[in-house]
């Protein structure tokens, strides 16, 4: 693999769901509607946006947990197409789920939960080898061997999230979709889990797609950040670049709305408070999805969807008026 081939590349990914809206009637919900991005090896790409904008769906459909409606996914430069491609891909790419309380079966032991992917992918020869691997994985996430025979429901949220991470590591992945892995945890526990993700990344050279809605957490952990709105990508750039110079009107208001845990900054902070609510993805606006809440919207915004363009090196934005308003 050459230096500048990304580990993972997603091109024009679409994931539509058919929703029954009444007697013999249905409608298409465009959960993800033409999203493109790439992730380099060893990098963390943060993915943010408001509830329902399609973050989890991006993660699931790029892993082929849903069959994408359309679009292409390339891994190490090779397109994932056949069933066999998918099977091989799943050994290298896994997911840590949003809610540590519901994503693990509470009536299963820790060793069963962590061992399951080993069984599915037949990653051991003997029973002893399996046991040893489970204990090794538990060690990586700071669980000790006595925990192995205990049940998931006996653990705190932070510990459960560690179990989920150990399970994701079982296949020796290169790439992990982390779907809000710290959102359900208490603030004092979040830092432990964030550090663990960073340590594991260094140790195994992992690549992350890190989904979260806490923008301070995302900024801390990400190299680059992607911002979504109503199924579409609106901006991608280097983490510091996007925080210091957001170009899309939605990014500007989103980042300015984050409450900063510092009273002096909070008092002087100029927040751009958006009026109106997020439209339903079943009734997405024509043209630019943000135009119903955008202070800069003009006629053109209702007519055509702005192109997702690279405006400076590695800084992509989808807005008709980028150059006029910045």
């Amino acid at each position, binding site marked *: 693999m050459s230096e500048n081939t990304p580990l993972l590349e997603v091109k024009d990914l679409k994931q539509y769901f058919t929703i029954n809206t009444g007697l013999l009637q249905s409608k298409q919900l465009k959960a993800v509607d033409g999203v493109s991005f790439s992730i380099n090896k060893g990098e963390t790409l943060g993915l943010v946006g*408001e509830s329902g904008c399609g973050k989890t769906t991006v993660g699931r459909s790029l892993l082929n947990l849903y069959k994408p409606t359309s679009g292409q996914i390339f891994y190490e430069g090779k397109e994932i197409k056949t069933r066999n491609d998918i099977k091989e891909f799943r050994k290298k790419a896994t997911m840590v789920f949003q809610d540590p309380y519901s994503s693990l079966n509470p009536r299963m032991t820790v060793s069963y939960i962590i061992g399951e992917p080993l069984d599915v992918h037949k990653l051991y020869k003997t029973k002893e080898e399996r046991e040893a691997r489970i204990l090794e994985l538990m060690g990586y996430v700071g669980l000790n061997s006595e925990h192995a025979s205990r049940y998931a429901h006996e653990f705190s949220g932070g*510990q459960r999230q560690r179990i989920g991470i150990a399970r994701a590591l079982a296949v020796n992945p290169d790439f992990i979709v982390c779907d809000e892995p710290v959102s359900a945890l*208490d603030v*004092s*526990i979040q830092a*432990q889990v964030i550090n663990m993700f960073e340590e594991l990344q260094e140790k195994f050279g992992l690549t992350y797609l890190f989904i979260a809605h806490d923008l301070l957490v995302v900024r801390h952990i990400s190299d680059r950040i992607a911002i979504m709105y109503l199924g579409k990508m609106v901006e991608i750039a280097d983490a510091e670049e996007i925080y210091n110079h957001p170009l899309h009107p939605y990014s500007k208001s989103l980042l300015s709305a984050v*409450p900063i845990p510092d009273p002096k900054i*909070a008092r002087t902070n100029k927040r751009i408070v958006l009026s109106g609510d997020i439209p339903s993805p079943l009734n997405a606006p024509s043209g630019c999805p943000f135009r119903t809440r955008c202070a800069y919207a003009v006629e053109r915004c209702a007519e055509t969807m702005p192109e997702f363009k690279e405006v400076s090196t590695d800084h992509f934005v989808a807005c008709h008026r980028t150059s006029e308003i910045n």
Partner: protein
Amino acid sequence: MARLLEVKDLKTSFFTDVGEVKAVNGISFNLDRGKVLGIVGESGSGKSVTAYSIMQILTGTGKIVSGSIKYDGKELVGAGEKVMKDIRGNNISIIFQDPMTSLNPTYTIGHQLTEAIILHTDRNKKQAWDRAVEMLRLVNVNEPEKRMKQYPYEFSGGMRQRVMIAMALACEPDILIADEPTTALDVTIQAQILELMKSLQEELGMAIIMITHDLGVIAQMCDEVIVMYAGSICEQGTADEIFYNPKHEYTKGLLRSIPSQANAGKKLEPIAGTPIDLLNMPKGCAFAPRCDVAMKICLKENASRMQINDDHQAACWVNVREAISNE
């Protein structure tokens, strides 16, 4: 003039099958007119139980064991349900984290708002309806007349939370208790709601008790901050004192563990160990088992609250040691 709210040595417990859970274990604080008081603390530290105790809406086996809660000089503990009903209707209101559980899905928004107003004021049906429309307009719900006839499921999360605020404000309370009012909401919607609460507070001159685990929300909204750990107040002071001069090891740990400008690009410093189990409370300071600088005395005895300066109190032995060594 009497203080608006004065809480003294309040203790509230749940009497469960496995023992007494001392959810709130002797807390004292005051709230003055027009002020915003923040309560932060770990999950399970007693923030909500403090709020429910003030309102006397504890569920299950929960009971105020001892202590005093005075509203405008009037004792509420033991005052009886009739008095409390009046207080809840006219003086102190609460909004909860999840607006869906506090709105009835089978009635229109208008019906629920007018019922609440009729219950708590002596307005007739027509007047209550007009007042409800006025309240919806106040909380920036567009086309309020039309919205009155809709059901909760037709509202977005942010709109429902605004309806809850409208309902809480309909009786013109002196104190609004907001228990994690924006936790379930998205950042841009949270910003709308916080802005709204702040402007209403200034306009109507009410006091707010803002319960949240989000230090960002505290920094943005509060004059005064209480930090709770395991049912007790470990530290209390002005927002500036708490953020720039923390004097309890839990608060220090909490501030170190959140991502900020200061630790950008560095490892976060988590608080070690696991959260407290109220049924197995350690002797001495409840935070000692997780504290990096715990001394022998911390494991034996609880530190009492010490005045750090005019605007600041904390209960931590480290301050006692410093005070002694400075003498």
